[in-house]
């Protein structure tokens, strides 16, 4: 389980408040989607909850362990797939996997078994000896997916994992996410791809301009839209946004609901 309590973060250089008093509880055994437009604060939130950057206020608990007070113990409890797959491009794939496995203190036999199994699923077995620099973006992403699971973490955190994956690998990833949640683990992932979120997520959180604007499942999102009146906050009449949001009134897809909710959260246009 992952808990974020009153997290706020302002970047000193730009003065931008990237995350604003965000509180979120991600229970075990579900796939939790984290959605938001570009610059909403998704990656900053993931970086805070993985200890890559420090929050100004608030706390993060991973399986009840405070990340700030017991960082090593807390970090052992999750595996991260970062949004940039271009890590350590001068290493060979197996060297990178070995490094990550060493850091998590995974015995040789266990790491070999996990890597062989996952490499086969993601069709990466043939290139494990290759330099990462020679791999495509999709292959690097798959390598990061394997690295994130090499220590069989309870919590799996993925930042935009679908980007660059071929259909077969995207399918394999979705299956893995379901298996992980079914085994009682937590899956927390951010995405722009609404169709993926709609099909796979049990719960959703939507963030815009650093503030959480929705948490719940898709049904709750639809109900929220209905209760607020589907036609409100649909942008200035005659604009493409208004037309799109108006169409959302009849369209109950996640994308339409997401657009309308984000539009609502930004208030009336001047």
């Amino acid at each position: 389980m992952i808990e974020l309590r009153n997290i706020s973060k302002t970047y000193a250089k730009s003065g931008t408040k990237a995350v604003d008093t965000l509180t979120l509880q991600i229970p075990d055994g579900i796939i939790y989607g984290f959605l938001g437009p570009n610059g909403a604060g998704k990656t900053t939130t993931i970086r805070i909850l993985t200890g890559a950057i420090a929050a100004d206020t608030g706390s993060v608990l991973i399986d009840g362990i405070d990340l700030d007070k017991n960082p090593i113990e807390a970090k052992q409890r999750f595996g991260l797939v970062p949004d940039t797959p271009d890590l350590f491009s001068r290493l060979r794939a197996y060297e990178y996997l070995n490094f990550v496995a060493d850091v998590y203190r995974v015995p040789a036999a266990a790491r070999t078994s996990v890597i062989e199994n996952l490499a086969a699923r993601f069709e990466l077995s043939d290139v494990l000896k290759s330099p990462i620099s020679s791999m495509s973006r999709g292959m690097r992403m798959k390598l990061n997916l394997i690295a994130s699971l090499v220590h069989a973490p309870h919590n799996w955190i993925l930042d935009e994992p679908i980007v660059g994956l071929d259909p077969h690998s995207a399918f394999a990833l979705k299956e893995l996410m379901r298996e992980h949640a079914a085994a009682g683990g937590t899956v927390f992932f951010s995405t722009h791809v609404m169709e993926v979120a709609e099909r796979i997520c049990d719960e959703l959180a939507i963030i815009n301009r650093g503030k959480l604007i929705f948490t719940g499942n898709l049904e709750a999102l639809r109900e929220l839209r209905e209760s607020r009146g589907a036609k409100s906050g649909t942008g200035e009449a005659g604009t493409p946004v208004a037309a799109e949001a108006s169409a959302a009134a009849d369209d109950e897809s996640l994308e339409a609901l997401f657009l309308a909710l984000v539009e609502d959260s930004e208030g009336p246009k001047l």
Partner: protein
Amino acid sequence: MSRRPASPFMALLTLNLKSLFAIHLPEKKALASPKVLLKTFGWIVLAVFLVADFGFMFAMMDIGMYNALAPLGMQSFMLLYATVMSSVIVFLFAFITSLSFFSSAQYEALFLTMPLNPSSLLTARMATVYAIEAPIAFLVMGIAAGVYGIKSHPGFDFYLYMLFNALAMPLVPLAVSYAVLVPVMSVSRWLRRKNTILYVGGFIGLALALGFNFYLQRMMARIENPVLLQNMLTQNQLNFADIADWWPPAWLTMQAIAQGRTALGSIAATLANLALGVALTAAVAFLFGKSYVKILVNFGETSAVKGTLNQTQAGSIFRARPVFLSLVQRELRLMNREPMYLLNGPFVILLLPVIFAITFIAQGDEMRGAVDQIRPYLTGQAEYLIPAGLGIFLATATSISCTAFSRDAKSLHFLKSLPLRPRDIIAAKLVHALIFAALGIVLGTVGGAIMLGVSTLDAIVALLLAIFGSVALNMGGLAIDTFWPRLSWENPMSALKRNPNAVIMILGSMGLIAGLGVLAATLPLAKYTFALLYGTIFVAACFALGFVLFRAGEKRVRQMEP
């Protein structure tokens, strides 16, 4: 009224030039901040220093040559020399720069989707190389013109011919470089790789720099001795004249500035030089444009090392290691496999002794004389302090410790999300620097002790001092980069070479070594008292820096945000 859009070629050229120089002068408002003002001033001083440094070197050579040749009535030979020198330097720079620009071919290939014809793409790239070459030709020729002008008082037209011929000088080398490189790269898949280009370019560049250094040392040695210079130039005059005759830009330049030439003849030679350069460059752009585009399209083709791992192989490559060893290994691999880091980091330890050896060989008699002059002073504490200083300098010249976190900027988020103690990350970075420091100490201190023929006791004392000193300085460098890392950069070169921490470290260690040397020469203490004093200072510094790095540094790493 709307501004007329620039032509696609001009837009591309502007973008190339802006990317090349990437100088962002602060706005007037920003200069109100003392930090920005100081930084801007520092960069200006550095730029002036660099130009002045090279300018001074050429000016000294030109003045020395003029003074040596004037009694023989051969002073205009200095202009021939400057013209040949300028031709050679510009040619070498043009070749290296053209080659190195291929390393960014993958980015340039993005322009292939735009409505630009192949010859425009190549011309824009050649123009960018020209923008680097022209100031070099201008500097070498301009200084020669200035020296000759002050001493011989030629007419104003002399300066104009020198200026226009200097501008023409880089064109033919540019055309020749691309006429050679494009066909070679077209047929060689091996060369169409960024790493290959960086290594090949780096080594050719180093070889040329060493060769140039060798030549300069020889010239400087002779300029200090006018008789030697006169002998060398008069005996080799035909060789210099041969080069000028054989290389059209040099020959035309000499025709333009030759004494007794009519104005019409000088103008014709200058125009011919410009026309030759422009015509050749245009011909290369036209003839090789399509091949150049093919190189861009096919650049960086790699074939992944394929082959399914069998059980035995998997067992042999997936081995568990202690976390700390894995961290150190990561540091070594990431540095040694990045050509830019390797050539400017660990490789420096080997390069500096080679430069020293070249200087020694080139200035043979002078250097031996200098060593003989120093030898009487090589007594007392100098017997162990000089080898120790050499070792400390080599051990800290690699910039490994003082750029350790800066180089990790792109993966810092991920690294910090791993269950690692910041102190382990810091310690691994320090150990990485110290591994190469050990090599520097072996070459500098042990090599220096052998070369100077000091006693075993002095060699051991020097070795101990070098170890303590280099550990302290590397810890200092790492502390600087831990507290003030350069985490925003666009390529590995800027992480290392444009990192102020590297400059601070090299200048700092040189200053410290010089300061301790001066102190040793002035304080009236017994021979080994200095060893005790400096050793105590180094050890105390190690403890203090250890505290800073592993206490405050740990907190700093937690707060570090790229």
